[in-house]
């Protein structure tokens, strides 16, 4: 034993300890996260593809409050009852520092879908249990969601960065420039055509059929995009595809009209973003809407038509609070105690009125007649007087009636401001928007409001200051420079 420990041997021991410990350490520095998957581990199986697309829907859930802000709050159907960041758009007071112009949530959705669109098509090569068709279906869902995000962005900001590359590594350009609205919309049309081909007509569960991307949802969005771009025939055709699927989409009976919101996922629902308090899926819609009362303009519409189906205790309750998101019943004032109303992106009357709008513009007598019938079928469901006009009525009158019907049917569903911008722009009639907005404001405010929206460039929002700070390649929108 002693000889093991003589001077020379000891130094050999010491040196070998140094050397042994110094070698073979390559693995030692390769640590991988335990709490998350790495790209190397992900996008290998069907389950990964399913989880990734669900992640996109999760991002969509985060969008709904902002989508409502963008589509509704500057218009004429509400009236702000408090001054705060939510209600500044109502005063047409848009400042680049206001959070309403923060587009994070929409690009978050874009970012997640980009990764799905890039990575999922490769999975069938790895996982034999995942077919090309299943892959295409998931890509179709992602394409729809990305298109939806861009459509909101284009309608709100006009020219926006068109980011299509997945942000997988730091080799990607994180500082995109703006693309013209038209080129963004061209891309949407192409993407939606692909999505239409692969999206399923329906799913096994009704909540999935109403809450996930279907062919009907793609067609509804197509109709909306074409309408925005004055492509009226294509818009009418796309809308008709939805209307043709009568087994899946039918109007809810007038007596059950409020169930559309309180019960969710009714037979007229085409695509609605799902929430459920019991699984911690909530949103801020009730809080957002509580900053507004219903505008007297809309109250007049309901009063003139004596609309009991959609009026008091349905669209609103006494005190003029909007009731669609916050109510549970029509008979008593029972509030939704949980922050989980669904956000309806498209439902049947919306698509019907889109088609009517397209037909009204196409202008043939028969087409205008069909447009009136579409409006009347919605009015019939609401048990209010039918217009019963014939196809010779002027298109401008039809547009007034369609817009009036959209207001009554779709109030506070995030549609109205886009409707006003669309019609005013497409018909080259700025006053269509301006007069309606001013009519809904207090007399004292009208001069100031007018000064703020007289320039159509002001109908689009400024790019958020934080975004400009972060991306030196972005230029502020024209009206706000």
């Amino acid at each position, binding site marked *: 034993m002693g000889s093991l420990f003589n001077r020379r041997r000891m130094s050999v021991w010491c040196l070998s300890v*140094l050397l042994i410990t110094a070698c073979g350490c390559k693995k030692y520095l390769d640590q991988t996260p335990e709490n998350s998957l790495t790209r190397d581990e992900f996008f290998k199986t069907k389950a990964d593809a399913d989880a990734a697309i669900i992640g996109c829907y999760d991002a969509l859930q985060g969008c709904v409050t902002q989508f409502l802000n963008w589509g509704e709050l500057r218009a004429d159907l509400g009236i702000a009852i408090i001054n705060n960041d939510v209600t500044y758009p109502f005063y047409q007071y848009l400042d680049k520092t206001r959070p309403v112009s923060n587009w994070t949530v929409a690009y978050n959705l874009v970012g997640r879908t980009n990764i799905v669109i890039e990575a999922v098509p490769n999975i069938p090569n790895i996982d034999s249990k995942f077919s090309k068709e299943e892959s295409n279906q998931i890509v179709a869902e992602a394409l729809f969601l990305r298109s939806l995000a861009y459509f909101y962005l284009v309608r709100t900001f006009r020219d926006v960065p068109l980011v299509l590359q997945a942000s997988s590594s730091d080799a990607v350009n994180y500082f995109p420039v703006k693309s013209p609205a038209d080129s963004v919309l061209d891309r949407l049309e192409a993407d939606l055509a692909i999505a239409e081909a692969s999206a399923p007509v329906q799913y096994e569960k009704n909540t999935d059929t109403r809450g996930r991307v279907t062919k009907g949802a793609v067609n509804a969005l197509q109709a909306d995009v074409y309408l925005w771009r004055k492509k009226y025939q294509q818009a009418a055709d796309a809308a008709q595809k939805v209307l043709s699927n009568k087994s899946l989409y039918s109007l809810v009976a007038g007596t059950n009209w409020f169930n559309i919101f309180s019960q969710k996922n009714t037979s007229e629902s085409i695509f609605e973003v799902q929430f459920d308090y019991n699984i911690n899926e909530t949103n801020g819609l009730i809080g957002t809407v509580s900053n507004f009362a219903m505008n007297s303009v809309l109250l007049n519409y309901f009063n003139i038509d004596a609309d009991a189906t959609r009026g008091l205790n349905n669209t609103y309750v006494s005190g003029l609070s909007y009731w669609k998101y916050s109510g549970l019943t029509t008979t008593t004032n029972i509030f939704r105690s949980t922050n989980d109303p669904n956000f309806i992106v498209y439902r049947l009357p919306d698509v019907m009125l889109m088609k009517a709008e397209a037909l009204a513009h196409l202008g043939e007598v028969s087409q205008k007649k069909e447009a009136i019938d579409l409006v009347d079928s919605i009015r019939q469901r609401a048990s209010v007087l039918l217009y019963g006009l014939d196809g010779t009525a002027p298109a401008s009158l039809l547009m007034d009636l369609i817009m009036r019907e959209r207001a009554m049917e779709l109030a506070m569903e995030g549609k109205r401001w886009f409707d006003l911008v669309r019609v005013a722009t497409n018909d080259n009639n700025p006053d269509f928007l301006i007069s309606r907005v001013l009519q809904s404001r207090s007399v004292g405010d009208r001069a100031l409001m007018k000064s703020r929206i007289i320039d159509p460039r002001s109908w689009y929002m400024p790019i958020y200051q934080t975004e400009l700070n972060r991306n030196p390649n972005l230029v502020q929108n024209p009206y706000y420079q």
Partner: protein
Amino acid sequence: MLIFLTAAFETSAQSGVVIKGKVTEGTSVKPLEGVTVVEVSGSDRQLNGTSTDAHGNYSIKVTDTKNKLRFSFISFETRIEPIGGRTSIDVGLGRDTSSQFSDVIVLGNRGGQVSTGFTTTNKRDLTGAISSIKSTVFSEVPVTSIDQMIQGRAAGVQVVTSSGDPGSGVDIRIRGASSLSAGNDPLYIIDGIPIISTPFDNSNPGASSVARINPIADINPNDIERIDILKDANAAAIYGARAANGVIIITTKRGRKGFTNITLNSQFGLQEAPPAIPVLNGSQYKIMRLEALQNSGNINPLNAAVQPLLNDPTYQFYAYYQSNTDWLSYLRRKGFTQTYNLSVSGGGEALRYNFSTSYTGNSGAFINTGFNRLTTRFNLDYKVSNRLRFSSNISFARSKVNNYANYGQGSVYYLSLIKSTAMPVYDIDLQTGKPLSNYLSVGGIQGGLDNPVAFANTVTNDAYSTNLKPNIRVEYDIIKGLKFTNNTSLDFVGENGFLYLPSEATGLIWNDQNFNRIDTRDFERTQTIIDNLLIYNTTVKTKYKTTFLLGNTFNTLRSSQLVESGYANPSSQIQTLSGPARVRSLASVNTTENILSFFVKANVIYNDLIGFDVTIRRDGSSKFGGANKYGNFPSVGAYWRLSNEPFIAKHLPMINDLKLRASWGQLGNSGIPNYAYISQFAAGSNYLGYQGIYQANPALNSLRWETSESTNLGLDMELFNSRVTASVDVYNKETKNLLYNLALPYSSGVNTNTNGVIGSVFTNLGNIRNRGIELDLGVDVLKPKKATGLKWNIALNLARNENKVLKLPGGTITFSDTYAGFTSQVKQGDPLGTYYGLTYKGVYATDAAAIVKDAKGNTIYQADGVTPKTMVIGSETGNQLKGGDAIYEDYNHDGIIDDQDKVLIGNANPVFFGGLNNSIDYKNFGIRLFIQFQYGNDVINGLRYNLERMMNTDNQAATVLRRWRKQGDMTDIPRALDADNRNSQPSSRWVEKGSYARLKFITFNYRLPTKMVQKIGLKSIDAFLTANNIYTWTNYTGADPEIALGSSPAFIGIDQGLTPQTRGYTLGINVKF
């Protein structure tokens, strides 16, 4: 390795001879009891031993008669006797006159060993910049944490106490902040082992308001022998990749050969309650609020915000708004601290030990705040033979912090100031008007602001930490001068946090997710380090002293966190997660970091005249990928002792020592989260009940080390018989490839949630430079010939650091931190910590005064040419300014106060900072007087911002009684204006000079006469009385000019109204047995 070594030492037994004998004192016959008798081999290895009995007799069975017997006894000389043929050996031991028993270490300024990492060096031989602090300096300072000891003691080391709350930490910057996102905290080394020194990452959901523990506070200050601060790259080079922010080396006390020393210290301290800031009383508050609402156009008497202010008894909640509550008086109190420390040290030839245990109990200046700590430490050195030595340090600490908690609304101090004085502490029966016993905690009242008294009294917010640090070191001399060392250590830091928000504090009902809410968490971190070193010391031709060091280190840091948050507990009395509680969130995180390092160091000193050293360290880290895993960190340094050159020695005899130093080196920083470079996908994004996964981080293949390169020039001198000592250092430190958590444009589509920042990735960008000068000066003003004469020493340190962002892509980066309207930003060409804002010039006396003027002062008219144009804020269509609104300088004369009018209005970096210590001793008395100061920094008085802006329901300071109220009022405080920030814009109105000098403490100490003490069987008794934070010279109007630096290097000097530090008194007694 260790097992092998131990096994190798087993000896083959032989039938032994029994040796007997007697040990006496010197030549007398007086027997010595307890003398250690050891059989030692030829190589001085101890084979077996015994000790003498009461008569001095011993008996030992020896293994080999060729061996020797060693007789040793504390304070006696050691004798070694060959056994030979003898069976009886009597010895007489003489008194050892060489060893001193006083453990007051009195080292010269230039003498002594300095720890330079892995080795110690004589301070004479240093080439790098190192500041050292000895235990004598702080033995009389009543601090509870070692980081507080450093404040003002070392030039170039900026130490800021983060708040006056018990157990709170300090922020330390050594030679300035040099990193944006990789951390600016120094590396702490205790007895050669890097320790876990940062508090737990609190970015996890539910954890943000739970009390935290500063791991450095777990170290007992009484255990510290000395602290060495390695400031430049040369000194710190041996720690390579972790040392870019400097290294603080802590050496703990070890046993010395000699009598057993038993020391007992007790300290009792009182801390004054925090000062009050005068605020509006109840009726003044209501008038101010009413004015604010009316000024912003809200004159509706039925408005929910207006109703409470109208004093209308028919109003439903009238009774809630009729008080005049002094909130602070319910919350503050005198703080009390008690500390007990017992240490036992001693040892003999082979074995030395130092054992200590301490308890500290501290109750804070606010109710329900406190800090408790129990520590033990056991340091052991065992010499097996002349060639083999073992040593071991084991320390354990358990501490508890309890603190306030709310929903992130600010400190209790801050809340007590902004809470409406019109409201009562306790509920009132609205029907009868009778006071009730429960707290008034009604959601929605005063904008949902909590009742701070209810929170302080009923909320539980505790953190417990467990800290265990064992380590074992083996040293073996292979041949003369060549030593192998293995160091194996473990550092365990565990923390349990616990927060309970009972419904009586929050006023919430059962379906709210904060109703009877519980947040608990279990965190633990374990660091294991194995060092292997070969050290070769030799002297060539008596003139060349050389040292070579070769080593490697394995470092594994594993961290695990479990956070559970629940709500709807059945009762406020049950404060643990139990049956009916519902889940708010559940999360656990495990991460591991591995670091592998190799290093070599060579050091040559020629004749005490010239020294030269070179160090190269190569570090690999699991935090980086591919080719970027490894970084090389070289350093060189040299010195020249001019005073040993004949021409100086001859012609300038007043110079005792004069040394020039120069060094250059590179260090690294990798302080980013683990796995940042790996593309990651995270769960937790669900829809329709399906589980979703999203990309939480893109692959960052180009991510690499942050490198700081520094050059240091130093001069050390001693003059006039060493009565004056001075050191000057000049340095330039440039940090490149800054690691930065870059906030990406939202449109990039990157949705990460690293560190809670949405859309950010780590990247390397930009350069920051810190350069500066440091001076350490010590003067023995009075230096008596007799030890008991009048002695006066002055020690001054002074430093100036200039920080500058040299390069930044894009020119400016805006951080997410905001406070008081200010946004943190970094701009190329500026230092870190600058503020941009409007220039505040007072208050418009009338509406007519708020008109636009051109550069020459002429009025600008509207298109009609008659009506003057009115100033607006924000944008062309923004609000028009009126009488009572703030006047801001409109630099571009466009009539719009906006971002274009924002200019540089403040810089939080001091021009210089330092400390001044006076110590005066006469006979048994001593006085210590210590001043810590900084000069030339700006502070954003965020507390004043919150107490003077009059734009929400917060109560305001009494200064707003001066506010503008009607046309023509000339004042410096704008009008009250609800929900409108035009008058509280980030502007020079909130920026103040933050220079201060603080008499940190003054101590009187007295040592009882030795003779008197010895009569009662003790060695010594010292007593001291210290008063701290006695006085602060400053023009700053806030409660405390010492403002925490916080975690963001670019957003410093922001007074957020944390608990101020207050005056305190401590009485301490040290008894040695």
